[in-house]
């Protein structure tokens, strides 16, 4: 008995070591962004200083530079705008599609659903070359609209897949009953199904938006002028002047971008994971 208790204590200590070590390693870059954001340049550039702490009083200079002398604010607005439009396109197309696929009789709906999900796995790095021609044909090269048109290619498959699961969990008898009561299929969908799946729709909103903020390859490929750029590409490519890295402002931009998106995403993460694991954990 005593040995078993001892073993349990050892295990507990080991678990805490893992938690602390992994937590520290994974979160370290964000701590580093935080401390760099508020450090004076003279402090950053002195190799004799201990880099983990403030050797000189903290400063807001980097933030001032970021907001007043760079296009950072513009990029944030661009990204928010693109995110908003992509969310609208995604909802308008994905919600009815998911409902229809969930209600298709036979194996058809499931097969089509899997087909849709598979398109999520076709990567931007395979499509960017042909899509750059498509974007040019549409006359959208070097505009924010180029990415707005292309981003639903990855928000749609995932959203449809996620919402299909949602609609499937609502019993079919319910829409049948509504239709007996005189509603059309479309009426049952609008008046009954949409209100019942608000939380699923909200999840899709958050995911479509965060996927837009995280995208890199398409924005890098299609947009070439700094003023039209999104934050994910603007910060790493245009905040560097020549060979000079303004690390303080760069890290401030990183911190401001990643933490809110992280919090937003984190709230809805469990649903996202359900989308990947599907039935595998039930």
């Amino acid at each position, binding site marked *: 008995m005593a040995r078993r208790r001892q073993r349990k204590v050892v295990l507990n200590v080991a678990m805490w070591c893992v938690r602390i070590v992994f937590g520290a390693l994974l*979160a370290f870059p964000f701590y580093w962004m935080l401390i760099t954001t508020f450090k004076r340049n003279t402090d950053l550039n002195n190799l004799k200083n201990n880099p983990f702490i403030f050797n000189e009083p903290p400063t807001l200079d980097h933030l001032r530079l970021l907001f007043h002398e760079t296009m950072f604010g513009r990029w944030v607005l661009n990204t928010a705008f693109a995110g908003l439009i992509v969310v609208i396109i995604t909802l308008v197309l994905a919600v009815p599609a998911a409902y229809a696929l969930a209600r298709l009789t036979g194996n058809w709906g499931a097969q089509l659903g899997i087909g849709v999900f598979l398109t999520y796995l076709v990567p931007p*790095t395979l499509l960017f070359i042909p899509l750059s021609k498509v974007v040019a044909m549409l006359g959208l090269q070097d505009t924010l609209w180029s990415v707005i048109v292309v981003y639903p290619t990855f928000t749609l498959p995932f959203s449809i897949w996620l919402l299909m699961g949602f609609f499937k969990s609502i019993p079919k008898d319910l829409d049948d009953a509504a239709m007996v009561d005189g509603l059309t299929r479309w009426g049952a969908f609008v008046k009954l199904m949409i209100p019942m799946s608000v939380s699923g729709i909200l999840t899709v909103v958050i995911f479509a938006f965060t996927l837009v903020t995280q995208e890199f390859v398409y924005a890098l490929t299609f947009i070439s002028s700094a003023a039209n750029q999104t934050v994910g590409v603007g910060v790493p490519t245009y905040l560097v002047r020549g060979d000079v*890295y303004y690390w303080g402002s760069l*890290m401030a931009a990183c911190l401001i971008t990643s933490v809110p998106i992280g919090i937003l995403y*984190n709230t809805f*993460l469990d649903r996202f994971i359900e989308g990947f694991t599907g039935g*595998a954990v039930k």
Partner: protein
Amino acid sequence: MFMPAILYIVALVGVPFVMAFVYSVSDAKVGSVHYHFVGLKNFIDILHNPTFIRSLENSFLFTISSQILVLIGSTILALALRDAFPGRRFLRFLILLPWVAPVSIGSLGWKWILDSLYSVITWVLVRMHLVNQFDAPMWLGEPKLAMMSVILVHTWHMMPFATVILLAGLTAIPSEIPEAAAVDGAGFFRTLFQITIPMMLPIINVAVLFGAIFTFTDMTVIYILTRGGPYDTTQVIPSEAFFTGILGSDLAEGAAISIFLVPVLVIAAYLALRSAHRAEVT
């Protein structure tokens, strides 16, 4: 009701997918409207290009080694996060940040951490008298170190994703089974390797296969940290396709390079579907 969404996906995923193959056997260039069928010329050219062969090898090295590290790390981490403990939610948030923050932004944080002069890692190693300040390692400037750095940063980015998927699988195991094993005298490691891990195998497959697809087709970490350098030693297939097809304006050759992603993609997607299906059945 699902037709609009399907049409959108067909137009912007299906058609470009086919176009990628068409371009790969043509002489298409950026800005030119005429192109001709050239057969397998592009494929023969790239197979004679040592940089491409290198990027092909690197893609496998990059994917396999980061996925092995992710698998080991996320299994340990998922076990440490399974049971409730004070601060679990906060720790989960910290651990998730590398995945949820935009990857280009997170990589930029690492670029500063791995800076040739002001690297904090170098600073620590100098203090520990492991390296000389005037002969400090160039984390992103020496071929072997650069490859190691991009692999580790990518591992950092992917580990949270695998961890939450494994965690979902872990919490789905009825707690009576490991408890019964403990009563029968099985120790922690015996329970782990003979019960927990075998029971989680389907979900581990899902995590690894999706992780492999995302890794094999991604270029963001490499683009931000090394741009494929020094001397193309960290080039992978997606980044090579980008530099050739987009920056080098040779759409046809770029498309041919990215076609090399397809076989791996198809195999991984097939295996992922099969293991998800199997997990559902049993």
